[in-house]
Structures are given as structure tokens and as C-alpha cells.
């Protein structure tokens, strides 16, 4: 089985979705948050996802990351169909192929900075000596080489988000999903984090999908998509 071709630009897609529908039930009334989303992200592509609050951006991101399952439609990541996987298989896929950057950083407070970065590898049983060395390098790359043994609540917001970026890339994923990664940061710090994220994914050829409200952030992307009322309307 192979992925259906949408917006085919020649090579195999990093992400493809076909007819994605997600409904929620509120007070007995069903509401469609996604109304048939078709999407294709190329390998190494940096795509921004724009849209008003409630337009379905984060829902789409969560479906792509396997944090949630669609009611209808298909999701393919690197030629693997994801929407039919069970919970555990989706989790394993997530830790091996996908990195997350959240708006609220979401570092584990009981782990040090280095341990947070190593976490996806640790969970996958891959935290060997080489992995530790790579994690330290990543920390140097994000400018926190000297904070490896600190706990997250000792870091500023910008520093925490930089750790989150390092964590997202530690497992050498094919796809990084960032949900408003600068939403909790001031303009300058936010730009710094975006610079870093962009540089690291481009260096590694990783596909990046960033949900954002910022036109400036969208301006950095190779492509900007817009969502409105559960549908992709631009890009």
C-alpha cells in the first residue's frame, strides 16, 4: 500500500493526509473541527500553518503527531499509514519519527535539562553513550551547553523552549511539529527560538510544521497554509 498522491512535487512526501475529519461532541451536539483536510508536506520543508483561534490548527497538528485519532480520513508519514495504528504503535512512532515543541514548553520538572533532551531516546532504549554525546552537542547547539545538569524551573522561558527544541530533535525525527512555539515568549526571545529551530531543522533536513499567529514567523517558512473553519484554504 502506498500513499495517495496529493500536490505531488516529484519525491516521496514526509506527511500526507487525505480527507481528514475530526468531530467533537459538546452537550450532545456534534461539531466538526476538521472538515476534510488534504495536506502534503515535502521532506525538509518548513511550512507555517496560520488561522484564527478555533480554526482547527492545533487539532490538525495533534492528529499528525498521533496524539489524537481522526474520525475519517487517512494520515501517512513517510509512507506509513498512521491513523490505523493502535495507541502503543502511535506512541512508538511518535518517539522515533516525530518531535514536538509546545507553546508551554512542557519539560519534565523532575528531570535535568540533559535528561529531558535524552528522554525520547531513553524511552526507546537508545540512550547509550553516543546518544548522550549527541544530546550534549545539541545542548551546545541551542546555547545551553553549560546548563545540562540544571532543572527546568531554574531556566528562563526562552531557555526552556530551547531545551524543548533540543528534545524535539534528539531522536533524529523526520518531522517536527511546533504548536505556537513563541506564544509564551517575548518578541525578541521568540525570534531567537525560531532562528534556532529553523537553523537546526534545515541543517538536518527535517520537515517542520509550525502553527503560528505571527505573520513574521510565517514569512520565514517555505510555504504558509491557512486554516479556516476546519478547512485548508491557502498555500
Amino acid at each position, binding site marked *: 500500500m502506498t500513499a495517495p498522491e496529493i500536490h505531488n512535487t516529484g519525491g516521496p512526501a514526509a506527511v500526507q493526509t487525505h480527507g481528514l475529519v475530526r468531530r467533537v461532541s459538546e452537550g450532545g451536539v456534534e461539531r466538526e473541527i476538521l472538515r476534510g483536510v488534504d495536506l502534503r508536506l515535502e521532506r525538509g520543508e518548513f511550512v507555517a500553518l496560520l488561522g484564527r483561534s478555533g480554526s482547527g490548527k*492545533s487539532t490538525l497538528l*495533534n492528529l499528525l*503527531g498521533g*496524539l*489524537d485519532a481522526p474520525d475519517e480520513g487517512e494520515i501517512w508519514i513517510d509512507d506509513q499509514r498512521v491513523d490505523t495504528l493502535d*495507541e*502503543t504503535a502511535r*506512541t*512508538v512512532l*511518535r*518517539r*522515533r519519527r516525530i518531535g*514536538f515543541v*509546545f507553546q*508551554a514548553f*512542557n*519539560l*519534565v*520538572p*523532575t*528531570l535535568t535539562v540533559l*535528561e529531558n533532551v*535524552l*528522554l*525520547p531516546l*531513553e*524511552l*526507546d*532504549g537508545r*540512550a547509550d553513550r553516543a546518544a548522550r554525546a549527541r544530546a550534549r552537542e545539541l545542548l551546545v547547539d541551542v546555547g545551553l551547553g553549560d546548563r545540562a545538569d540544571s*532543572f527546568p*524551573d*531554574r531556566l528562563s522561558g526562552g531557555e526552556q523552549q530551547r531545551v524543548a527544541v533540543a*528534545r524535539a530533535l534528539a*531522536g533524529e525525527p523526520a518531522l517536527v511539529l511546533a504548536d505556537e512555539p513563541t506564544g509564551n515568549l517575548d518578541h525578541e526571545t521568540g525570534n531567537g527560538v525560531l532562528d534556532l529551530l529553523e537553523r537546526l531543522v534545515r541543517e538536518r533536513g527535517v520537515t517542520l510544521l509550525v502553527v503560528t499567529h505571527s505573520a513574521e514567523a510565517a514569512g520565514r517558512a517555505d510555504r504558509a497554509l491557512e486554516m479556516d473553519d476546519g478547512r485548508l484554504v491557502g498555500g
Partner: protein
Amino acid sequence: MLALLSSAARHARRRPGGALLAILGVALGVAVVLGIDLANAASLRAMELSVERAAGRATHSVVGSPDVDERLLRTLRADLGLRAAAPVVERDVALSPAESTAAPAPDEVLRLLGLDPFCEAPFRPYLASAESGFAVDLDRFLASPDAVLLGAETARRLGVEVGARLDLRLGAERRSVELIGVLEPRDGFDAELLRGLMLCDIATAQELTGSLGRLTRIDLVLDDGPAGEAQRAQVEALLGPGERIESTGARVGTLARLTRGFRLNLQALSLLALVVGGFLVFNALSFAVVERREELGLLRTLGATRAQVSVAILIETGLLAGVGVVLGLVLGTALGAGLVHLVLRTINDLYFSLEVGASTLAPGSLGKAAVLGLVTSMVAVLAPLREALRIEPHRALQRSSLEQRAQSRARLGLVLGAVLLILGAAVIAAAGRSIQISYAGLFAGLVGAALIAPRATDLLLGLAEGPLARLLGGTGRMAARGARRSLSRTSVAVAALSVALAASLGVAVLVTSFRATVVTWLDSALVGDVFVTSPSLTATRTTGSIDPSLVERLERTPGIVGTQTFRGRVLQTSVGRVQVIGVGIDRARFERYLFAEGSAAIWDDFAAGRACVVTEPLAFHHGLSLGDEFEIESPGGALTLPIGAVTRDYASDSGVVVVHLELLNGLLEDERLSSFTFEVAQDASVDAVIAGLRERLAPDEDLQIRSNRSLRAETLRVFDRTFAVTSVLRALTLVVALVGVFSALSALGLDARRELATLRAVGMTPGQLWRTLSTQHALLGAAAGLYAIPLGYALAWCMVAVINRQAFGWTLLDLEPAYGAVATAVVGSVVVAVLAGAWPARRVSRSSVVEALRDE
């Protein structure tokens, strides 16, 4: 303010588990304290009634050693003009089921009270009817040699009517009496006084109990003040050897003192349950406040003053505590009703016959338990409230500052805990004979240990981190770290669990060691193969009266090769009224005594009546030691003997003095016996000998004949029954602590929902999540359990070497390790901790990661 309260109410509705656990904590603590208090109050009331029943309005009594010559009554009335003087013969009797030698059930024991109706008017008003003099046919009461009366309720309970004949057991004999009337009580109080009483004329009682010319005592009503003192002095001047005058108030005191150690131990255990319950309340309430720190910060930002927030939280706590207290009072009343039977059964087994009617609700006990519950709750909420009010209005309290405070609190706890431990040890060392002071020291030590618990747990978890990381990788390290970091919110529950486990373990070690000692003691005390006693109304006393000719007849039974005889009487001695036991034994038997001080080398002096032996409790309670002079008063005059040895004895916690039988017979001027043992020839069957002995008994002779084995089993059964109530309390304390840990850990899991959801988002499978949480909780449980082990043994040592000695005067041979209890403590706490983690883990595994991440 209304908005603040609605916010709190909605919070409680949204997270009902926390509120329910706080209520449960208060309820369990209050219930245990109330239950024990009601049981103790009921047993004390039973003692008061038992004295009141017999003494009526007497202010003083003349008692003898062992009894009083009835001629003294005439002297008092004639020479001193004391009209308010009444003779009394009093004795416990058992209603005997016809044609059976089975032991009577405890509720068939009655107090036989022989009275002179002509002297009674000033004393026992319940004997008179409301309108006219004596309530029954006086002629029959006086003239009939076997006429008795019962209270109407007792007669109904026994299912007997006027005219019925009742078989009584009196020592070795059976006697039949006729119920000639029932006394209708005028009110509920009279009904209480008449409960379990059998009345007869004084002459009838003397004849039934074989004490012609003798009285148990003479009741007196003396004037108040100096006139009364003068009368007392006049009475004293007329008293013969062994006779003395005592106030009736002192008699309630004597009974209460006898069971004081036992009741105090129960009270201490119930207080421990309250302390653990208090921890639980503290934990639940502080968690509720910490959980809402952001909300409280927001409220402060919006302009709520500290006072407004405080009042809102205190009202909330008051409401939760109020519901808990009401629930606790209901539970406690039910528990009290159950416990009172256990307590009274033990008092009946070990001390004296008591009976109590339907348990009455004592407003004092209810009030005390309610106030304790409310005050503990309010004190428990103060610390978290202070914490919440420190929140700067412009920002919510960060985890890091919470952790920092928790760490500095743990450091302070360590210092305070160490001080309290040292203080506790010093208090115990200086407590002397005061059991209350020892308990105060013990509680100080326990609180100290509880304060140290967070630091000790942290240390244990730190030690576990490396090995766990090697064993389980990141999950193991995360679990150990998570457990350590959670101490800011779980340390109170962990400390409470440690203390409860330690107390439980301590009591288990005490009971196991005690039982082992009693088994060893039984081996030394139970010689001979067959025991013969007159039926005893309490399990550990033998004061019956058997004619020695009966022994001579019985020892001719084939198979019997040796006899040893015993006699017990309560006599006045230099340390008060004490059970004096005369033993007709040989040297070999004497050498088997477990000597605590001195040795069997004094046998020659003992056998010649030149020395006595006292038991350990008697020596401890009265500060007696080897070589001290001990005086025994008797009708034949006073006798002074040196104490030749002190022996271990666990039959009586008030203690006894042992002399040679011939000496006691000489003092009492007769040769009656209380019990004897037969040795059976090696080739003869014990059962066959017992059957042979029973055949030789006449129909009206009533003796208990038992084998060594059955007596031993009976003694251990009484022992186990004695500790039944302790086991109930131990279990309750553990339940309270386990509920606390369960609530703390499950609440912690729910609070960490977002953190757990992050782990799920970055790739932790539900199975890994469950394993991490389970390991984290198991570590906390194991740390609490491990910390409890040394604490439990220290507690056991304290209870065995200090408290038990002060309460009962007993020392034990060895401290048994009680491995089973240790394993139960550790495994139990791990299991409960893991179970507590299962619910939040399951919730997070099943719920949407997206929802959880968005939830904050």
C-alpha cells in the same frame, strides 16, 4: 466572600475525591477516639455501678483480712450507738445449668448480696418500694433458708419467674435456691443498680457461702466533717487483727486502679489513631490548598485580601471537618458498642466480674471527640493556609519555590525531630513509675520520628536512584526522582504511614514477645497432669474453697502418683489487700519457678515458713525487693516474713505473694483449699484419670477438672482475647494511615496530569507510564515501610521495657523479631502505594493527551 466560597465549593465538586478523603480522615480519627472513650467510660461506669450496687449509700465499710467477725456489728451498734450500720455478705455466684459441669458463660454470673433488711433503710433505697417499707414478702425472705430476690429485668433475662428454683455454684458445691420475689425498679438508675444482683437475707448468705458468723464487711453511714472523723476513730479503736475501715469512694478507685494500665494502653492507641488521622487531615487539606495555589494567586491579584482568603478557606475546612466529625461520631458510637464488649470481656477475664447495660451515649465523650476532630482539622489547615497566603498576588507560586520550601521544612523537621527524639528518650528515662509521663515521652519520640521521616525517606530514595537507573534505565531514574520531588506534597502522608506502620509493628512485636514469654512461663507454672479447681468466675483467679478431705478421696483414683495443693485468699498486708497464695509443693516444683530475683536456694526457709516469694508485679508496684519485710494480717494476728525471691508471673498484674500452704493454713486457722494438681503415672491415661476423678465426685460437688493441655490452651485463649481489642485498634490505625497515603498519592498523580501527558506526548507508552508511576509509588511505600522497621523495634522495646512494666509490672524474657509483621508492614505499604498510583495512571493512559496538555 460569597464568590470565594462558591469557588471553593465548585472546586470540591469538580474534585470530589479530595474533599471525600479529608472528610474520611477526620471521620476515622474521631471514630477511633470516640469508640475507645465510650468503651472505657462504659467499663468505668460498670465499676462504679458494681460498687454502688453493693455499697448503696454507705460512706465507709469495715473490712477484714479475709473477713469480719459479725460480733463487731453488735459492738458498733450497741457501744458506739451507730444505727446506720449494716452487715453484708457478698460473693460472686454462677447460675449452674442443671446436670452439667460445663463452665458458666460470663453472663450467668450474679453478685450474691446477703443483707439484713432491718438495717437496710439508710443504705440501699432500691430495695424499698416507693410507698411502703420492703418491697417483698418479708416473712418469707427472713424465714425461708433458701429465699432469694432478683431485679425484675435480671429475672426476665434469665427467663425465671417467682417460685422458680435456681441452681447456684458456690465454690465446689452446688446449692439450690428459690426465687421468692422480683424487685421492680423505680427508675432507670435503680434498674442499673439491680442488674445482675441476687439478694438474700444475711443468714441465708452466710449459710450458702459457708461463712457462719462472718461478714464480708459492715457498711456504715458516718457523719460529715469532724464528727465523722471522730466516729471513724471510735470505730478504728474497736477493730481486731486484720480489720480496718475504708471509705467506699476508695473502692471504686481500687477497681479503677486495677484496670488502669489496661485502659490507659487502649487510650494511648486511640490517641495514636487520632494523631495519624490528624496527619491524614493535614495532608488532604494542605493538598487541597496547594492544588489551588494558582487560583488563590489569581483571587489575590483581583483584590481578595489575605483575611478574605483565610476566612474562606477556614469556612471550607470547618464545613469539611464538620461533616467528618458528624460521620465520625456515628461511626465511633457503633465502634464503641463493639469495643465495650471486648473491653469488658478482658476485664472479666483478668480482673473481676462486670456487667454493663445498653451502652449509653456519654455527651462528654461525644463532645471531646468532636472538639478533638475540629481542632485537629483547624490546626492541620494552618500551615498550608500560611503557605497559600505567601503567594505574591502578581504570580502563582512556582514549583521550584514550593520544593525549596519543602526542603527547608525538611531540614527544620530534621532538627526539630532530633530534638524531640532526644527529649522523648530523656522523658522516658526520667519517667520513673508514671505511665502517663512515659507515654508523653513516647509520643514526643514518635512525633520526632515523624518529623525526621521526610529527610530519612529522601535519603533512602536517593540511595535507590543509582541502582534503579541501572536496573530500569530512564524510567527507574524518573521514578526515583519523581518520588523524591513529590516529597514536598507526600511527606506528611509518608510520615503518617511510617508512624502507623511502626506502631503496628511495635505492638505486634510486643504481643508476639509477650505470648512467647507466657508460653515459657506456662511450661514452668503448669506442672502436674490434671488440674482440679473450684469453678472460678474470672479466668485467672482461684479463690474457691474446697474441703481437704475431698482431695484425699480423689487422690485414691487409680493412676495418680502425686498431689500438690494450693490455696488463695485476699488478705490485708503491709502493701494493702493482696492475694496470698499458699502452695503445698515440693522442692522440684519450687525449682521450676521463673525467678526474676533470688533463686530456689531459699527453699528450706520457704518450706519452713521463714520466707515468702512475691511476684514481679507486686514487687514493682510497691517497690519491694529481696530481703524486705512483708507483713500479712490474719485473724490469728500479723506475721512478718522476709522476701526471699521475686518470680515472674503473668496471671495477675496486681501481683500475689506466695507462702507455704501450711503457713497460710495456720494464719487462716483452717485447711481449706482452692485448687490442686495430680501427677499421673507414666503408664496411665490422663483422660482415663479425669474420668475416674469425675466418677468419684458426689452429685452436689462441683469441680473443674482439666488436663494440663486444656488449661494451657485456655490460658492462651484468654491471652489472645486480651489482645483482641489491641488488634482491632492496630488495624484501625493502619487503615487510617493507608487511606492517607492512598489519598496523597492518587491526588499527586492527578496533580501531575500535565507532566504525565507530556511524557506520553514525547513517546512514553501507557505501559511505560504505568511502570514509572508504580515504581515511584512503590519506592515511597517501601521507604515508609523500611523507615518503620527500626522505629517499630524501638517502640516495641519501649513498650516492653518501660510501659508494660509500669502498667502491669511484668518484664518479658526476650523481644521476638515478629518477621511476619515486618513483612506485612513493608509489603502492605508498597501494595497500597502502588494501588494508589493505579488510578491516576489509568486515567492519564485512557484520557486524551491533548486534553491533559490543554487542561492547565
